[in-house]
């Protein structure tokens, strides 16, 4: 089945130790998104790629970066994780840019920072 896959499902890192979260998709969608979902809060968009074009949200900390080496894969890099970065990170894809395009989500990676 076509889907959005996130690895790992659970990630533990130490304060200040760089960490990379992975997302892959078999849907061949043009757009890939990364959301941060803290406990009891709404998912919040960090950034997205439309094809190779990267779009950062204005309030996304510089500590967060992303790479999309090809259509299928997208990575979220946290350069120096702080305790406040502990959250569920959701990857999503959509076929196109328009508002009518459904976003398809992965199961998320839960990040713990010790």
């Amino acid at each position, binding site marked *: 089945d076509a889907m*959005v896959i996130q690895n790992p499902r659970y990630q533990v890192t130490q304060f200040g130790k760089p960490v990379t979260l992975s997302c892959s998709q078999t849907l061949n969608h043009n*757009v890939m998104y990364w959301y941060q979902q803290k406990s*009891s*809060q*709404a*998912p*919040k*968009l960090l950034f*997205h790629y*439309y094809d190779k074009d990267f*779009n950062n949200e204005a309030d996304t900390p510089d500590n967060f970066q992303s790479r999309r080496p090809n259509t299928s894969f997208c990575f979220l890099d946290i350069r120096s994780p702080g305790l406040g970065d502990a959250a569920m990170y*959701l990857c*999503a894809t*959509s076929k196109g*840019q*328009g*508002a*009518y*395009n*459904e*976003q398809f*989500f*992965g*199961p*998320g990676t839960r990040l713990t920072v010790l």
Partner: protein
Amino acid sequence: AQTVTQSQPEMSVQEAETVTLSCTYDTSESDYYLFWYKQPPSRQMILVIRQEAYKQQNATENRFSVNFQKAAKSFSLKISDSQLGDAAMYFCAYTRNYGGATNKLIFGTGTLLAVQP
């Protein structure tokens, strides 16, 4: 700025009964879309139902229907004949057309629905 508010952090319903989840939003746009997403425990978020703001008719998907009140900026989800598999976190979300730029979802904080057997 657009905002989405879900005022019910938790809800409970008996199996086979009907439950309504509330959502309000704030926007000055006229062309936008509203969604209800379901996030089961440890599983991915999936789209339940979508409503285009220009459509007056309320969207329906099997046991799921919405009550879209555009003037009141209200978008509630009704689940009929509730099933155990409906237990999940439900998120209300909003997006609009960004004139050629990529659409962005704005989510509410979610309502955790429990279904009692």
